[in-house]
């Protein structure tokens, strides 16, 4: 590097600063500057790709770690006291020894930190040294380098299945269409392939890209952590600007799939990449218990100060009472007044009594929580066989909150339901096609599935997993094959034949065959289904790996076996490639209708039918081989889309290929139509719809196909579909709406399909707008959305679909159990009220006899009056004496719009008051933001502990807002899981997680904390009482080393074990009687009373432990430390036996630790007293313990003191257990019975209580599809009138729900 003036350096640094600071960055290629000095590199201000996630450097580890640790005020307190001890006038112990406890605690923490940091360092080094290809000007080709060598402005080539080293702007791919697929599973857990396209017109896609000719400047925004958003434009040498977004960005950490190689320009490197920016550490949540704990620590501080004041004042009075200078009072250097000495004495007392604030409390709580998390993650009942997922605890420090939940906010789709979408019914042009055969098939499939599960369960048990806390789903390592397991883990949406198979409706098939080939609503409808989506078609090549893996997993015996094995594998392991699956085992229902239509039936069905009949019927007309079609794999971002594509496929409209520019669809007639995609208006939550604009290959019309939520589409309907139908248009809309309502009542998800023909002129003007919007940097999203809205008007309704989303296993049971546990369950869904209410009934959130209040209004005034009316009514209702003993409860169904109004600041209180009185609340059509607002409002207004559970990105807000966020690792990627504190795989796991683990964790931790306070107060007070007999001079009568050991070793493990392993009730009992959960709610076990009772008990016990030995040894020749020995021993026994009274169940571990602690005390003390002659100067421990142990009085004192100290607590427990009868106590008694009779008792108990939930037959879920569900049994829907008028409706109706079967 050449010499440069300091001024230039400063200027350069400033410019660099500016380059980093400014909103936009201009990046140039590095190639022209290759080989030049660093100072002349254009991109030198941007960080390199080497990452460093370590917190410390080896040289500065100690100071940095110390600094880090001193952020904890508890550490500051103890360090401060330790140093206070070095001040000669106030010291209570030898200064050096006083440092020991805090040093031990802090060095343990430092060790842990160092180890973690070392692991981070190792992983960093591994990542930084991964190979990648960078273009070198000298070599004129891509040369292999390390990840850390990548710089901003480099050209990097990534090949298939390789991880991307930095954020790359895609310039070129091996694909002729210039697209590239990436898998972002490592980033967000979503397994579907995402398509990225090269920045258009920047690099002419000749076979090889020449980076040296790249003369453009890339202008991009500052690095941010938004994974789904990126703004940049490329300014070519000729000043032409080409916009590019996230669709051209290859993210660091993702894997390239399906593409041979791709070349990109590095825009962000290292720590500025989106994935690294997303990598912010663990969130710290503070549990309710911990907040309470901190207030009690403050109480302890107050207590400590009070005791020290007593000491100081006592010392002052004692000094005053002395007539002259006694020989035992050592003269200090200068003049001394009693008041000054007493002032010093105050600090000496603080040092002496410091452990009143439990030093080990925080670290012990951490250990306890780690242990609890270990047991939760290792619970086999929370393990999901299908996805091979354990329960994951992301937040380590809020386990106890699980035992205090009062409100649960649940998402519906994917949480209560499977989120496995099955096409059920559709309505086209006002005609309904019920698809009854399909319904029958689904009913049959249920049985099949259960069989499969049995078979799967018989597989040989897997080798035992190691003892590890990390039940993290995200797997690690860079091995290629690992991706397969990953795929298994995050089960994708379209696994079983259930979802991929659709048996076409007979009538509809006839209609299609009869329809004119050029148009008609049927053709458009199915074309829309096939085209209007973002489903990717994977080629068979990408599947090879997985297929091979599977065949290994299921060794074939006979062809038939292999088929069924394959099917089982697909069904159970849940792989992505289900549509590459071959065929269902059998068809139990010979389906005549389909057989008749065999000539017209699409390829996908032929084989199955052929199989059923034992005939291989093949249509000769078919062009490409069937195998090709069978190998089609649809990968969709949402399961709905896939379901619709499969439905279209069943009717012969097969989506063959999708590229950004072209969609190829095969028609039932066999011809392939290639639609040119002009634009895709992607789905978003505010529009609730998506559209695809295509050019029809035959008619050359520009057609916009839109699908979306019914209310989102219905508002946009405009011109009639075709001239001859003009009269019918309104009729179609009303008919379809009618059908939609009936679908919703059946709990189906509804979607409307619409189309619009866009004229050339409209398109031209719109297209210009669109381009501008796309190239915009500011407000790009808003502009893009606006342009989408511009086009999506005057739609023509084609039809509607009903997709079934099946309830997950045991959801009703779980909901009922949670409600019995005193938890209010709210469901927040984006669905229509009808769908929501239906699901509500199906999962027993609403009961048949419930009073359902339906709230829906348009403006604030009406909303206010509704709220007031309803509140009044509800109050009257609940105060009505006639309703006291009825089981009828109130449920509230509220619409998203109304909810927004009700949550406005002035109405909040009323709404919350109303909701509080309702047993369950259903909020429909709520946006993610509203979800989180509901949670926040309830949390703040009612001051309750809330839990939110959800599975999708739209639940993230809610999950983060709640005290406990639970993510369900389901079909919709990992965003919810990433944001959550705990991740489960099924909703039903919530039952055991809350009722059993929540209860256990809470009671354990609460009791442990109470015990810790007790322990410290009891022990420290011994020292305090002694001050009354040593002139308040701050003498400790217990050897200081033994005091340290007492807290650190002799009495530390039992409470930790108690906190991890104590079990007040068995899991079966807690599950059988959910009411027991109520003990933890609200104030719970750890409250003001229990805390102070235990502190008072500690005072009493310390009084006994001090004064019984005192009275025994007074006026004898006993010396200080001989006197301290029985005190120490007695308090050890008292403290441990006190714990024994509290321990509810004694396992081998308990015995070992308890006995071990006592043994350790005796062994350590004996050895210490035998070896230490002059080692610990003032205390002279030599042979003291031995001489005490040879004295029978020692034992007599120990026994009587322990008995007197523990007698009150023991008697209190006995009396409480004998005289009062709490539910917990009775459950404990029941728990001691043998399992069978216990179950018997539980049943009888519950039936007596009137809960009666156990014996009751479960409602069939999902509603049996075999019968046509009556449409009119549901009372007139409030929303129907809602659509018509602006006025509000308030229905308070009590209804008997019609039985499904």
């Amino acid at each position, binding site marked *: 590097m050449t010499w440069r003036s300091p001024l230039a350096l400063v200027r350069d640094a400033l410019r660099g600063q500016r380059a980093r600071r400014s909103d936009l960055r201009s990046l140039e290629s590095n190639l022209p500057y290759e080989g030049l000095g660093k100072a002349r590199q254009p991109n030198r201000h941007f960080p390199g790709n080497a990452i460093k996630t370590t917190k410390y450097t080896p040289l500065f580890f100690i100071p940095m770690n110390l600094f880090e640790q001193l952020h904890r005020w508890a550490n500051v307190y103890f360090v401060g006291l330790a140093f206070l001890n070095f001040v000669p006038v106030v010291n209570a112990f030898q200064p050096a020894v006083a440092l020991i406890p805090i040093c031990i605690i802090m060095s343990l923490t430092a060790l842990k930190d160092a180890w973690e940091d070392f692991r*981070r360092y190792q992983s960093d080094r591994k990542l930084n040294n991964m190979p990648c290809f960078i273009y070198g000007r000298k070599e004129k080709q891509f040369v292999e380098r390390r990840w850390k060598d990548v710089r901003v402005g480099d050209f990097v080539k990534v090949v298939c299945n390789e991880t991307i080293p930095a954020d790359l702007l895609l310039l070129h791919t091996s694909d002729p269409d210039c697209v590239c697929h990436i898998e972002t599973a490592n980033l967000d857990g979503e397994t579907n392939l995402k398509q990225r396209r090269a920045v258009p017109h920047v690099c002419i896609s000749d076979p090889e890209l020449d980076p040296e000719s790249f003369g453009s400047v890339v202008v991009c925004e500052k690095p941010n952590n938004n994974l789904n958003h990126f703004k940049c434009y490329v300014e070519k040498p000729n000043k032409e600007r080409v916009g590019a977004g996230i669709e051209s960005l290859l993210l660091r950490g993702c894997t390239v799939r399906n593409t041979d190689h791709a070349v990109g320009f590095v825009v962000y490197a290292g720590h500025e990449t989106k994935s690294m920016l997303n990598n912010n550490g663990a969130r710290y949540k503070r549990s309710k218990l911990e907040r309470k704990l901190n207030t009690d620590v403050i109480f302890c501080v107050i207590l400590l100060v009070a005791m020290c004041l007593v000491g100081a004042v006592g010392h002052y009075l004692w000094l005053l009472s002395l007539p002259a200078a006694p020989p035992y009072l*050592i003269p200090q250097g200068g003049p001394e007044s009693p008041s000054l000495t007493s002032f010093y004495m105050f600090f000496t007392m603080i040092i002496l009594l410091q452990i009143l604030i439990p030093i080990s409390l925080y670290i012990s709580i951490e250990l306890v929580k780690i242990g609890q998390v270990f047991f939760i993650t290792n619970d086999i009942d929370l393990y999901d066989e299908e996805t*091979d997922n354990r329960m994951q605890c992301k937040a380590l420090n809020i386990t106890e909150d699980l035992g205090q939940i009062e409100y649960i906010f649940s998402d519906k789709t994917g949480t209560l339901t499977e989120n496995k979408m099955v096409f059920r019914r559709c309505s086209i042009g006002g005609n309904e096609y019920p698809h009854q055969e399909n319904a029958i098939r689904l009913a049959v499939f249920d049985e099949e599935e259960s069989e499969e599960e049995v078979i799967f369960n018989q597989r040989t048990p897997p080798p035992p997993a190691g003892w590890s806390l990390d039940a993290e789903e995200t797997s690690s390592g*860079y091995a290629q094959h690992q991706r397969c397991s990953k795929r298994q883990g995050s089960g994708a949406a379209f696994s079983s034949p259930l979802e991929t198979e659709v048996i076409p409706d007979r009538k509809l098939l006839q209609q299609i065959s009869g329809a004119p080939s050029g148009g008609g609503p049927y053709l458009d409808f199915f074309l829309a289904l096939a085209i209007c989506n973002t489903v990717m078609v994977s080629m068979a090549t990408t599947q090879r790996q997985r297929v091979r893996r599977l065949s290994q997993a299921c060794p074939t015996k006979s062809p038939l076996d292999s088929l069924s094995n394959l099917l089982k594998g697909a069904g159970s392991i849940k792989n992505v490639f289900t549509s590459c699956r071959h065929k269902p085992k059998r068809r139990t229902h010979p389906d005549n209708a389909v057989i008749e239509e065999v000539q017209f039936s699409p390829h996908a069905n032929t084989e199955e039918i052929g199989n059923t009949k034992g005939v291989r019927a093949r249509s000769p007309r078919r062009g490409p081989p069937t195998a090709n079609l069978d190998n089609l794999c649809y990968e969709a971002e949402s399961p709905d889309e896939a379901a619709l594509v499969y439905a279209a496929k069943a009717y012969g409209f097969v989506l063959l290929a999708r590229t950004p520019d072209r969609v190829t669809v095969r028609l039932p007639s066999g011809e392939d139509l290639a639609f040119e995609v002009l634009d895709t208006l992607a789905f978003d939550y505010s529009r609730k719809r998506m559209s695809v604009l295509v050019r029809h290959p035959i008619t050359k019309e520009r057609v916009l196909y839109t699908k979306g939520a019914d209310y989102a589409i219905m508002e946009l309907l405009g011109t009639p579909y075709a001239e001859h139908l003009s009269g019918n248009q309104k009729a179609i809309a009303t008919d379809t709406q009618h059908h939609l309502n009936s679908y919703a009542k059946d709990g189906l998800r509804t979607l409307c399909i619409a189309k619009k023909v866009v004229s050339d002129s409209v398109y031209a003007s719109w297209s210009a707008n669109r381009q501008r919007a796309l190239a915009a940097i500011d407000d790009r999203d808003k502009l893009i959305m606006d342009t989408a809205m511009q086009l999506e008007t005057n739609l023509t309704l084609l039809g509607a679909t009903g997709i079934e989303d099946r309830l997950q296993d045991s959801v009703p049971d779980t909901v009922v159990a949670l409600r019995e546990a005193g938890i209010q369950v709210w469901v927040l869904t984006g669905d229509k009220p009808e769908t929501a209410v239906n699901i509500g009934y199906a999962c027993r959130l609403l009961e048949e006899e419930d009073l359902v209040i339906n709230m829906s209004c348009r403006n604030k005034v009406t909303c206010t009056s509704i709220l007031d009316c309803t509140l009044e009514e509800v109050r009257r209702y609940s105060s009505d004496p006639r309703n006291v003993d009825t089981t009828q409860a109130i449920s509230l169904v509220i619409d998203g719009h109304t909810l927004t109004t009700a949550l406005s600041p002035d109405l909040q209180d009323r709404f919350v008051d109303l909701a509080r009185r309702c047993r369950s609340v259903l909020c429909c059509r709520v946006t993610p933001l509203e979800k989180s607002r509901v949670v926040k409002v309830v949390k703040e207004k009612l001051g309750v502990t809330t839990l939110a559970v959800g599975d999708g990105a739209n639940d993230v807000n809610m999950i983060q807002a709640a005290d406990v966020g639970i993510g369900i690792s389901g079909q919709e990627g990992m965003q919810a899981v990433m944001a959550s504190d705990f991740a489960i795989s099924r909703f039903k796991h919530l039952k055991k997680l809350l009722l059993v683990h929540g209860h256990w964790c809470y009671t354990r931790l609460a009791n442990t904390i109470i015990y810790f306070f007790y322990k410290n107060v009891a022990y420290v007070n011994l020292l305090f009482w002694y001050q009354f007999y040593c002139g308040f001079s701050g003498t400790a009568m217990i050897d200081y080393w033994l005091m340290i050991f007492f807290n650190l070793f002799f009495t530390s493990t039992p409470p930790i074990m108690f906190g991890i392993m104590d079990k007040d009730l068995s899991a079966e009992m807690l599950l059988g009687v959910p009411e027991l959960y109520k003990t933890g709610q609200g104030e719970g076990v750890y409250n003001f009373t229990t805390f102070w009772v235990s502190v008072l008990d500690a005072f009493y016990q310390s009084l006994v432990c001090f004064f019984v030995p005192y009275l025994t040894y007074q006026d004898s020749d006993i010396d200080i430390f001989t006197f301290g020995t029985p005190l120490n021993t007695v308090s050890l026994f008292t403290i441990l036996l006190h714990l024994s009274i509290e321990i509810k169940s004694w*396992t081998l571990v308990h015995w070992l630790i308890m006995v071990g602690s006592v043994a350790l005390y005796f062994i350590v003390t004996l050895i210490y007293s035998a070896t230490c002659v002059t080692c610990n100067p003032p205390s002279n421990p030599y042979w003291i313990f031995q001489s005490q142990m040879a004295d029978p009085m020692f034992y007599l004192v120990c026994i009587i003191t322990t008995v007197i100290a523990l007698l009150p607590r*023991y008697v209190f427990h006995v009396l409480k257990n004998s005289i009062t009868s709490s539910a917990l106590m009775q459950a404990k008694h029941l728990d001691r019975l043998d399992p069978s009779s216990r179950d018997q008792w539980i049943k009888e108990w519950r039936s007596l209580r009137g809960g009666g939930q156990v014996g009751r037959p479960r409602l069939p879920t999902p509603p049996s599809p075999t019968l046509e569900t009556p449409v009119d049994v549901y009372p007139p829907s409030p929303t129907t009138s809602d659509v018509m008028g602006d006025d509000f409706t308030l229905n308070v109706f009590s209804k008997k729900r019609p039985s499904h079967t």
Partner: protein
Amino acid sequence: MMASSYNAKEEDGHHSGAATHGVVGAAKSKKPDNTAFKQQRLPAWQPILTAGTVLPAFFVIGLIFIPIGIGLYVTSNNIKEFEIDYTGADINSPCYNCAQNLSWNSTSQCHCSLNFTLTQPFESTVFMYYGLSNFYQNHRRYVKSRDDSQLNGDVSSLMDPNKECEPYRKNDGLPIAPCGAIANSLFNDTLTLYYIDSNGTKNPVSMVKKGIAWWTDKHVKFRNPGANDNLTVAFQGTTKPINWRNPVYELDPSDPDNNGFINEDLIVWMRTAALPTFRKLYRIIQKKSGTTPTLSSGNYLLNITYNYPVLSFAGHKRMILSTISWMGGKNPFLGIAYMTVGSICFFLGVVLLIIHHKYDTRNTSADIPN
């Protein structure tokens, strides 16, 4: 695998075990082990404290404690103890003059004597104690004011005592041996006992001055410096504590083996008392052979060389004669405590029995509440 998620996890503080874990994970199911420990199903004993279950314990405690208490009480009562205060705070006391005129630096010795009568003979070995009250030997600074290595015979510590000994560490530039406030305030009264027989002659009671300290103290913790027998040489270069009359190697002129740091009176004094009112063993009056009592009943004369001032802290000095038993000196407290607690437990047992009959039927039959 990618950087961010990996590191995110590292941040969380739990490790996936990098690549190895991934490789194993592909083959292994994540299913937790179905072991009793991991599933929290270890066989457990779940005691429930109810009247019925703990009843026997109370009766057993009662039945054991009451006899122990009686035994302790009787033993304590059998111990003979005699105590006499010779402080001289009272104007009528023979030691009044000594007490009033005494100070630490007075050179002349003051003598006084007290008469007392033992009404009962002391049969077994009698221990003679001196008792001090209101003397806070347990004061924090006082307790620390010593140098254990010096007392252990360490030569370097002898010449350079621990700083804790200040201000009794050096005098006139010479190190004090033994240093510190404890040694400085050594109890230096001399007590001698005479039996006055019927014809008025004073018979000195023979007392042993060895064996009053702990064996371990005398032989392990306290040692004289230097190997040679000549203590004067060993302690050369040191000075006596300020309040002492004689240097440490001349503490016991009668017995050369009882001098220096291993002087038993010093050792006893150095074991600082736990409470402000304490006694320390002074002499032992060995039991005579045969049936003659160690101290027969009758008149005694206690001769005191009054050197130790206690009025400065309103203290008192006592002379105590006591026999001891296996439980030490006379102290009825423990016996009473055992008897009381035993009775309370017995009483509670009865109460619980009543409760058990009244309430406990419900629990034993695991009755359904409603």
